[in-house]
């Protein structure tokens, strides 16, 4: 265990690095301390820049620098892994209402959208359920790739430039998943209906039940049309490996 005295010295140095202010540190060469502040801030800022290249570009150097500096000064990071630091930045920016303060309503969504790619890319492998490549779409259980996130955005920053996206507040769904084999992170823009269908599939719901749910929820009676829609959607998800295959029930 470190003594409280040693911890105090380390905290003083860390506090100086973050704020440029603080008490005198015993034994330290004061005129060199600013180098630590510069070096550590550069590491933090570079990490954020690499995580959020689009946000940095659209916000511009000054705003981006100020956000990084404010985060560095005032947020007490919790994760010991450096790659998780950008998520804490996203949380800090959204919890402290910077989107409102800067009059950039799309800011939280853009940061989250950029973060989710890192999270998906870096997350531990999930053990996938067993599946076969051939099956009956309407009778077998579909096996969804477990390495996915279904995210909800208020602004369509994933398909439009931010200025345009900022004028189109709504409900947008994006399926983000990691392609088996390549590890590539892929994004699919989903309608509300398709988001519901995907979520149901991920919850191991049979197509027959999904169809009856859609009929009830959306007051749609044309079952052939629903089947055609679901069939096309699932074929696309299978081609992209967001759905891996079937667990045969029909045999």
């Amino acid at each position, binding site marked *: 265990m470190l003594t409280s005295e040693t911890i105090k010295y380390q905290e003083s140095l860390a506090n100086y690095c973050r704020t440029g202010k603080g008490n005198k540190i015993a034994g330290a060469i004061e005129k060199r301390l600013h180098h*630590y502040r510069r070096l*550590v801030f550069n590491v933090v800022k570079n990490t954020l820049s690499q995580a959020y290249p689009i946000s940095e570009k659209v916000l511009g150097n000054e705003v981006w620098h100020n956000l990084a500096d404010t985060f560095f000064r005032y947020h007490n990071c919790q994760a010991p892994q450096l790659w998780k630091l950008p998520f804490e930045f996203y949380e800090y920016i959204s919890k402290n209402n910077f989107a409102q303060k800067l009059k950039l309503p799309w800011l939280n969504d853009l940061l989250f959208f950029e973060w989710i790619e890192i999270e998906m890319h870096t997350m531990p492998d999930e053990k996938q359920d067993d599946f076969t490549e051939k099956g009956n779409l309407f009778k077998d259980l579909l096996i969804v790739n477990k390495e996915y996130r279904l995210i909800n955005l208020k602004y369509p920053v994933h398909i439009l430039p931010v200025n345009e996206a900022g004028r189109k507040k709504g409900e947008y769904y994006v399926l983000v998943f990691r392609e088996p084999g390549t590890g590539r992170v892929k994004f699919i823009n989903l309608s509300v209906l398709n988001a519901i269908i995907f979520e149901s599939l991920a919850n191991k719901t049979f197509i027959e039940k999904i169809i009856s749910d859609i009929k009830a929820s959306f007051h749609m009676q044309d079952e052939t049309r629903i089947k055609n829609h679901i069939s096309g959607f699932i074929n696309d998800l299978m081609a992209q490996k967001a759905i891996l295959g079937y667990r045969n029930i029909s045999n």
Partner: protein
Amino acid sequence: MYDLLPIPFREDAVYHVAERIRQVQDFLERKMAIENVSYYTPVAPEMTEQEFVNKIVDEAGCNLLLDVNNVYVNAFNHHYDAKEFITGLPLDKVAYIHMAGHEQVEEDLIIDTHGEPIIDPVYELFEWTIERMDPVPVLLERDYNFSELRALQAELAKLKNITTKAWGIKQHVNI
């Protein structure tokens, strides 16, 4: 994070760090090599850097990753003799060597940047060091500001020539 904050050279920090090294070694069931780092200011020290490094290696029962450039940088920044420092280290525990370039940012301060070519005095210190120890692998560190491939290969070739001369064998030198 490659810019490291200095650990205070204090007795409790020795035991704190050694305990963590032992935990990892117990889990891995093998020894780790701990690197001597560059630092630009001491923080409330109770002992010298050399005493601190030696005590940790002894207390943890670990190996040492000797960064020759870091010794050069620290000797310059804190006005001690690099060869005396190295002589006082447990060279029989060195399992790996790091070499790198650095940048002088003030008249009396060098920063360990890993962004410049190795300078001649660091090559000389490397040669002097390896003549006093058994062969171990050597790594050239370069994190950014990359030279052309030929320049990096020339640095590796120079390191290989020095190791071959000192150890009489071709040793692994990687980047």
